[in-house]
C-alpha cells in the first residue's frame, strides 16, 4: 500500500508539469502568434505583474469571488437547513429551487445589471443568486441524510443544544458543506469572470475582454495562468487540507 501511495503521489505531482510540456509541444506545432509557448506567456506574466495591472485585477476578482462565495455559502446553508428540516417549506419551495438551479447564469447577471446598474453589488448579487440554489440543494440533501440514531443518543445522554450541535449536528453537516464549497467554488470561478466581461471596470474577466479586442493571446493566457495558479492555491492550500482535517474520520489512515 505505501509504495502504491507514493506512486500515486508522484503521478499527482507530475500532472501540472506534464500539462505545461503538452502546451509547449502544441505551441511549437502551431503558429506562434495564435498559440504562444509557456515561456513566452511566463515572460508576459512577469511583465504584466510588475509593470501593468495584473495584481490589482486579480485582487479585485478574488474579492468578488470570495465575497460571493461567502454569502452564498452562509445563505445557502441556512436555506438548505430549513428546507431539510421543515417538510412543508420544502414542499412549497422545492420548485423554486429547481428553477434556481436551472436559471442561466448570464440571464441572472444581466437582470441584476439592469436593476442595480453596473455596480459591485449587482455583480456579487448575481454570483450569490447563481450559487445559492446549489448550496441549498446540497445541504438539504445532507440534512435529510442525518441519522436519527445519533439524535437518540444525544437525548439519552441529555446533551444540551450546544453540545448536540458540536457533537452530532455539525460533524454530520460538514461533509456536505465541503461538497457544496467545492462545487460552488468551481462554479464561481467561472461565472465571476463572465460577469466581469459583461459589466465591470476591472478584474481578470474585464482585462481579458480588453485583450480580446486586440487579439492579444499571450496576455490572455498570462492572465489565465495567473488566475489558475490562484485557483490551484486555494484548492491545495485551503480546501484540501481542510477536507483532510475535517473528514479524517472517514478516510483510511495514510
Amino acid at each position, binding site marked *: 500500500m505505501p509504495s502504491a501511495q507514493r506512486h500515486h503521489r508522484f503521478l499527482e505531482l507530475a500532472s501540472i508539469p506534464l500539462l505545461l510540456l503538452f502546451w509547449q509541444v502544441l505551441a511549437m506545432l502551431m503558429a506562434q502568434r495564435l498559440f504562444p509557448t509557456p515561456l513566452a506567456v511566463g515572460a508576459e506574466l512577469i511583465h504584466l505583474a510588475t509593470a501593468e495591472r495584473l495584481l490589482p485585477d486579480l485582487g479585485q476578482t478574488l474579492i468578488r469571488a470570495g465575497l460571493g462565495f461567502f454569502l452564498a455559502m452562509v445563505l445557502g446553508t441556512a436555506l438548505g437547513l430549513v428546507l431539510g428540516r421543515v417538510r412543508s417549506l420544502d414542499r412549497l419551495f422545492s420548485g423554486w429551487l429547481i428553477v434556481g438551479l436551472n436559471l442561466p447564469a448570464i440571464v441572472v447577471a444581466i437582470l441584476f445589471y439592469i436593476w442595480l446598474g453596473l455596480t459591485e453589488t449587482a455583480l456579487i448579487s448575481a454570483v450569490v443568486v447563481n450559487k445559492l440554489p446549489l448550496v441549498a440543494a446540497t445541504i438539504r440533501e445532507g440534512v435529510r441524510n442525518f441519522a436519527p440514531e445519533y439524535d437518540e443518543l444525544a437525548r*439519552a*445522554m*441529555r446533551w444540551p443544544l450546544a453540545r448536540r450541535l458540536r457533537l452530532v449536528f455539525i460533524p454530520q453537516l460538514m461533509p456536505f458543506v465541503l461538497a457544496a464549497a467545492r462545487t460552488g467554488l468551481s462554479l464561481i470561478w467561472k461565472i465571476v469572470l463572465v460577469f466581469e466581461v459583461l459589466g465591470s471596470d476591472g478584474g481578470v474577466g474585464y482585462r481579458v475582454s480588453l485583450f480580446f479586442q486586440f487579439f492579444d493571446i499571450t496576455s490572455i493566457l498570462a492572465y489565465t495562468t495567473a488566475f489558475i495558479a490562484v485557483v490551484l492555491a486555494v484548492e491545495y492550500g485551503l480546501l484540501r487540507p481542510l477536507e483532510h482535517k475535517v473528514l479524517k474520520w472517514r478516510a483510511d*489512515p495514510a
Partner: protein
Amino acid sequence: MARGPSLNLSIAEKRYATNAAPVLAGIDLTIAPGSVTAILGPSGIGKSTLLRMIAGLDTQFSGSIQIDGQSPIDAPPPGFVFQDPRLLPWLTVLDNIRTAGQGVDTATALSALERTGLTSAAKLYPRQLSGGMQRRASLARALAMSSGLLILDEPFVSLDRALVGEMQDLVAEIIAADQPTTLLVTHMPEDAARLADRVLILAGQPAKVVADIHLPSPVIFRDRKDITSHLRTIEGAIGFRTRPEI
C-alpha cells in the same frame, strides 16, 4: 458506590400511532435497587421500545414510569448500551467515551477503556474497530457515565461465543462492583441465567409480562451448576408460557 434506583412501571398502553395496534399493554412492575432484570422475548415484541420508554426517549404512552420517584426525563440519564454500538464515527474511541453524559474527564474515560480492555484502541476511530470492540466501546461509554441505571439492549448479539463469554464476565464484574440497577434485554436464555436476578418474559400482542422468575444465588457467586439449573427454569417458563399462546 451507591446502589442504583428502584423502578416503578405502570404502563397501561404503548402505541406508535393512535390508530396502530398497541405494542405493550398492562405492564406493572417494581424493580428493586441494584437488581439485574433480564427481559426476554422474541424479535419485534417490544423490548427496545420498553427500554426507550424507561430511558426517557419515548414519552408517548399512557401510564407512568418512575425512577426513584422521578419521571424518566427528570431522573439522571441512564448508561444506555444501544442495540447497535452507536459510537460517533467522527470521534476517536477515547473522545466517544469522554462525551458520555455531560462529559467525563480523561482519567474516567481511560479507566472505562481499561475495564473493557480497549486501552490500546483509545486513539482509533470506530470504523477501525472490530464489531466486538465497538460493542465493548459502547459498554465503556455507558460505564463512564457511572449512572445508577444501566440499560443494555442485546449487548451480546452477533458476537461469537468466546466473545459472548468474555462480555458476560465483563458485565458481571461491573454489576458486582458498581451495583447499578440493570436492565438486560436479550433473546438468549443463557444470558439471563448467567447474569440476572430476575427474568421477565414478554409475549403476546400487545406484549405483556407472561412470566416473572426470581433466580436465587447472587450473580457473582453463580457457578456452572447454578447457571444450568437457572437455564432449565427459564426455558421451562418460555416453553410453558409462550407456546400455547402464539
